[in-house]
């Protein structure tokens, strides 16, 4: 009787409890593997040894350098692409927009095969490139190609949504105040879309860092040349679990640092612009 009365007085309570339970289950599901990784790595006691081994350092260095180059290229090319698509009513560009997002759902291994068929020796452009003395597959350039292919859509999508969401009249108004489209882009468009752009950079960079399938297929797994951290982890899993654990923890930490760093910069930039 008392229970029934309590439920009548606060009918939202069961749904609150159910909501809390679902959240706990989800946090547990995501948190437990990460926690397990940290605990197991710590208990292995070999973090520093593994971290400073030449193979690990090479993988970390290669991952950071290639992903940095990739994200710079993605931002330079992706920003105008996203801006043009967001400002255009062209049906061709709308179709292109869907096409650009294809790599998000494409299995990375398929992306790797596709890139081989384009740039590989037997590929459509392979012969021409070879005649020019350019070899892309199974080089560090191929790592960058694979990263750009799979992670660019994350940035372009985020940038396109941000550009589409801002008030275009503000850009028009800037022009009526004597400012060129270029000045307007840097002083109105970019600051107003900054949060969306940095989120896109964070997502895209994190995706580049974790890229595995396309890299393996198109760039191979050569230490110091194409073996990025995810490939290093896979290789280590076959022979040395401790190395795999330590590399995984380092990759996790770098990803978290990038994510937090960009969010921090984004919010700081938003505040200081006023």
């Amino acid at each position, binding site marked *: 009787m008392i229970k029934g009365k309590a439920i009548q007085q606060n009918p939202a309570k069961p749904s609150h409890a159910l909501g809390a339970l679902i959240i706990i289950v989800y946090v547990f599901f995501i948190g437990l593997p990460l926690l397990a990784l940290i605990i197991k790595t710590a208990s292995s006691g070999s973090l520093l040894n593994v971290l400073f081994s030449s193979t690990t350092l090479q993988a970390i260095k290669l991952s950071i350098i290639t992903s940095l180059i990739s994200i710079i290229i993605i931002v330079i090319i992706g920003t105008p692409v996203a801006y043009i698509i967001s400002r255009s009513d062209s049906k061709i560009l709308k179709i292109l927009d869907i096409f650009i997002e294809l790599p998000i759902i494409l299995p990375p291994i398929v992306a790797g095969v596709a890139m081989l068929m384009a740039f590989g020796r037997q590929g459509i452009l392979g012969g021409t490139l070879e005649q020019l003395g350019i070899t892309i597959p199974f080089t560090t350039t191929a790592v960058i190609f694979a990263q750009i292919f799979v992670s660019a859509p994350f940035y372009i999508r985020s940038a396109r949504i941000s550009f589409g969401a801002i008030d275009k009249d503000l850009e028009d108004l800037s*022009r009526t105040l004597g400012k*060129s489209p270029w000045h307007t882009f840097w002083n109105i468009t970019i600051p107003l879309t900054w949060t969306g752009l940095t989120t896109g950079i964070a997502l895209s960079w994190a995706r580049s860092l974790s890229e595995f399938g396309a890299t393996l297929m198109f760039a191979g797994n050569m230490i110091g040349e194409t073996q990025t951290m995810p490939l290093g982890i896979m290789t280590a899993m076959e022979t040395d679990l401790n190395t795999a654990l330590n590399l995984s923890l380092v990759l996790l930490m770098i990803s978290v640092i990038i994510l937090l760093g960009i969010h921090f910069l984004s919010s700081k930039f938003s505040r200081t612009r006023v």
Partner: protein
Amino acid sequence: MNSVHAYLEYSNDNFNLCVDIHMNGKDSLILYGPSGSGKTTILKLLLGLLHPSQGSIRIGEQVLLDTNSHISQPAHQRKIGYVPQDYKLFPHLSVMKNLTYGMPRPLTYDHADFLNLITDTLNITNLEERNVLSLSGGEMQRVAIARALAIKPNLLLLDEPSSSLDLELRMSVRNLIKQLHEEFKIPTIIVTHDQQEALALGTQMHVLQNGEIIESGEPNQVLGQPEKIPTASSIDIENIFEATVTSRDATNGITVCQYHDLNVEIPLYDIAIGDNINIGIKASDIIVATEKPSNISARNVFEVKVTKIYNGRSGIMLECYAGASHFSVQITKSALDELAILEGQTLYLLFKASSCFMLKP
């Protein structure tokens, strides 16, 4: 002061616009019309934010656009100040940065002095370091006007300058715009669908409908006694009725027309007996009496029955009939209370012949 000449043709989907605008430098031109009539499109064409299929724009000696000669200055080179309806202050910049956005960097002494003059005139000096998101509607508008003036424009465009402000602020904004027009001497185009605003701010007026100027003139003339039925409809002339000319008295300057059973006297027009014409009279130009008046100068006195009493936009509205002849009459609430007018009551309506005007189709 620069004169402004613009001829603009523009088409988009099912909308076609064709207007010819001429202003002398002292003019404050009102573009008046309902939503979708093309008012804001004209502003955007002048600004260079839209491109006409045919047209020319000249301010003083400067040609901004001439499609025949393939001249089209981009928006950022036109020096036309623009204050949009919802101000469009840059939300990521302070008030000061909004104000100086269009000014050269670094600010010269001349520019700083000019900015001080503007901010003093608009009384926004104390707002300079504020975040624009913390400003009230009236403050936002003054900042938007100041920002547009700061580029020393050759032409100033104001889109519905007081539409989103409350009544009291509207009055002060209108006074301010008049003061700015006198002080800075910039030809100004004001888009509005508010008659009071048009009367308060305009020296000239164009009435727009479906992308065309249907009537032009001084605001008090156009809004008081328009010449055309579409204008009368768009400015809400409450009484527009068809009548037949029965006699003309050129000596006394009177035309008598038959409106159902009533003989209505209107001013003398160049029309023939037997012509069917449209007559307009504003509801606020009709006087109400509860007893039949005598010895008065008004040429039109009719006995009517009140069928409906309701609150209108500017006062109490009475719907009255004399047989089949219908009149809408506007009175104040105090007049309604004092005369104790009730639905079904018999009243007398009085209006001067000169309050009536003939409308062309």
